[in-house]
């Protein structure tokens, strides 16, 4: 099946990078809603609680998009289409396992 590779690679890589980013709490930036500001470095307590989610998404996009565009199409298309579904399913399973800490 030709042409699917770059789309599959983007989807797989986006999920992997996002999972790693939140696991290691590495966001490109954080948003502090109390003061309404974006910051690259952590802010002191008066700035209020941060939101890392936007930063995790941006990190994932900035890594997965260029990679999916750079990888040669022939190489990308060697990837089996099934991986585009299997790897995200595995990532969701990992997320559920990791987040079970909230229910213990």
């Amino acid at each position, binding site marked *: *099946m030709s*042409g*699917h590779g770059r*789309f*599959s690679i*983007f*989807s*797989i890589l*986006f*999920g992997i990078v*996002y*999972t790693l980013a*939140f696991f290691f709490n590495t966001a490109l930036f954080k*948003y502090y*809603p*109390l003061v309404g500001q974006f910051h690259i470095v952590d802010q002191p307590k008066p700035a*209020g*609680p941060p*939101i890392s*989610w*936007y930063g*995790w*998404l941006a990190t*994932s996009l900035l890594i*997965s998009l260029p990679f999916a565009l750079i990888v040669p199409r022939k190489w990308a298309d060697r990837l089996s*289409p*099934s991986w*585009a*579904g*299997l790897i*995200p*399913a595995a*990532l*969701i399973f990992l*997320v*559920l396992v990791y*987040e*079970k*800490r*909230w*229910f213990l």
Partner: protein
Amino acid sequence: MPVAASSCLICAHAALESRDMITTILIRHGLLAVALLGAITHQAFSTSKRVPAAQQNFVDKFRAVGAASYTNAIVILFIVTCIGGALLYPTYRLDVRPTLEDLDLRAANGVFEIKEHLAAIGLGLLPAYWFFWRQPLTIEGVVARRYLTWILAFIIWWNFLVGHVLNNIRGLFQ
């Protein structure tokens, strides 16, 4: 009117407007989620085995839809619904989450954490999902199409249910 009272009134009005705006976004977010839920459920059921028209019951008819035609709508609805969620997130972080922590509802915080992660993974899945549902549908893409559609269906159902439970949590856990 004294200056302090006037500025207080302006602040109160701004807060009220902001609350109205949040309520509007929340209702639209919920309505879009309902549309998304319907579309993805139809499409997900359509990827399972079909039965002859004469033997069709309600479920068979539910899944006997032109599934590919839902794809663009699902992609757009997913993105717009996520944007709505992203706009609501600061209010959740400042108003709802501290309340949940005060009430010691750790599980409620947990299901929301999962919701945000699933939404992100779902956003990443959209390009591959869109590609495998592109016309004409290929036989090589059947497995990927089925996996991706059911994963998205799981994500959308989870996020829909969690969103509604959290929205009504004060009434549910008095």
